[in-house]
């Protein structure tokens, strides 16, 4: 609805304006937060100067790898689990309680095994995201109507061809929902790991800046992560919506 969107933009602008006023008048002191316009300027300067581009590339790159791993492992895992009823029933309680487990506790062990490099972080990011992908993919696979599977057999398609040409295309929007969640989880995994222990990356820089009262660096970095994650999420959501609209489902 057009009206709602206008209101949303207006509210966002109003919130940012309010923050701006509160910061400029000193109600929020300089040590706590910069004025929003300052954050934006610092961000542009930071990107232009390229001083932290290495850290940014490192974090976003690792998050991308973790994301791909979560999606690939998640989809394949779900396809296998879907065929093995007993395994699926056994794993259900694990999936239901998975997101209560403090996965970051495994981080130090992973560092010892893999060393202090990208591998343990990517592992954590993928571990966080993979279950969301599995659960949503299973949901999609469950929904494939029987009549389409019968049609596949009539068309003389083998198991692999059926999975590739019928099952996956049908389940695609649901897989996309899982992938959308995996984007957020990969970022959380990488950045959280960098907060705990790392030698570089955006999380590391934010932590460093915080400890040194360096708001000039900290806020732009946070802002950048927010922008990236919201943008990617909106892209995925738009893609998801267009697929579902084509199917007359939303």
């Amino acid at each position, binding site marked *: 609805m057009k009206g709602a969107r206008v209101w949303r933009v207006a509210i966002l602008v109003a919130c940012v304006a309010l923050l701006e006023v509160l910061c400029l008048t000193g109600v929020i002191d300089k040590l706590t937060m910069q004025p929003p316009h300052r954050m934006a300027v610092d961000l542009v300067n930071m990107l232009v100067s390229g001083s932290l581009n290495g850290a940014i590339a490192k974090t976003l790159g690792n998050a991308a790898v973790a994301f791909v791993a979560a999606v690939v492992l998640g989809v394949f895992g779900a396809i296998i689990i879907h065929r093995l009823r007993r395994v699926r029933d056994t794993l259900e309680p694990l999936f239901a309680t998975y997101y209560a487990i403090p996965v970051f506790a495994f981080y130090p062990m992973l560092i010892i095994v893999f060393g202090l490099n990208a591998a343990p972080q990517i592992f954590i990011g993928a571990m966080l995201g993979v279950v969301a992908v599995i659960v949503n993919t299973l949901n999609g696979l469950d929904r494939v*109507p029987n009549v389409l599977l*019968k*049609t596949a057999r*009539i*068309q*003389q398609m083998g198991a692999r061809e059926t999975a590739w040409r019928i099952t996956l295309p049908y389940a695609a929007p649901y897989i996309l929902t899982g992938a959308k969640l995996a984007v957020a989880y990969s970022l959380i995994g990488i950045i959280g790991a960098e907060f705990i222990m790392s030698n570089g990356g955006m999380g590391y820089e934010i932590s460093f800046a915080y400890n040194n009262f360096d708001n000039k660096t900290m806020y732009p970095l946070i802002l950048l992560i927010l922008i990236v994650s919201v943008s990617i999420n909106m892209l995925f959501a738009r893609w998801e919506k267009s697929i579902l609209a084509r199917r*007359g489902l939303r």
Partner: protein
Amino acid sequence: MSHVAQVYPHALPGRRAGDPKPGTPAVAHVSMRDVDKLFSRPGGNPDDTFHALGPIDLELRQGEFFAVVGPSGCGKTTLLELVAGLSTATRGEVAFEGEPIVGRIPDGVGVVFQEDASFPWLTVRDNIAFGLRRLRIDAQEKTRRVDRALAMMGLAPFADSYPAQLSGGMRQRVCIARTLVTEPRLILLDEPFGALDQQTRLLMGDEVLNLWRKTGATVFLITHALDEATMLADRIGVMSARPGRLIDIVETGWPRDRDSRIVQDERFGAITARLWRALREESMKSIGALKPGAQP
């Protein structure tokens, strides 16, 4: 066990277009001999089986239009799946064009289901073209066939739409078109118009007759609508309540160039009445209103 009952002695004895030439060996197009289908109950002991269907003996002549009617749950869909090769008979033999069907879908068979089987992620054109994936014909021939199917089913203006944008009846046409492009010799229809309203059903019936004549295929239709069966078919098989057996086969004797206006024929009512006479008792059994053996 099968027998042919002449409804009207003056039904046409002469040859109709599409009949096998005299002197051709009478190899049934589809034959089922002494076929039984049992399912094992899930989670139970292996001896606990569900007798869905049979024993069935049936032969379909090449190019005929055969309909099956019966109470719900009698095994009509199971019967169709046996002929399609989607399921294997527990006992007995099912053969298509002389070759026994064993768990494989034979070439030259097309199926249209009751539920919408169109692929929501493909356009109408791509849906129809999907049927041609496996055939070794060049791209030009493929396009030609798809265009012809689009024209035959009246879908040409919607070729680039998605199924979700079409009505239920149109989607069924897409499924039928997808079946037709492979030029099947046997077309199986499992209550394809079940989800449509009565007027659309009658018109679709006309279209099916048209296609039947144009393609010369053998058509096997399952329906619960007696008037639909009577209008469309050359012969109608009546199934009993579960386990389904053929208790009657009725010859309609209609001319090949019929359409939905055949409902006005004076014999139409008599045929449907005969079907219902045979079916009523079985229907009551199947909904539990009658214990087996009791008098209706």
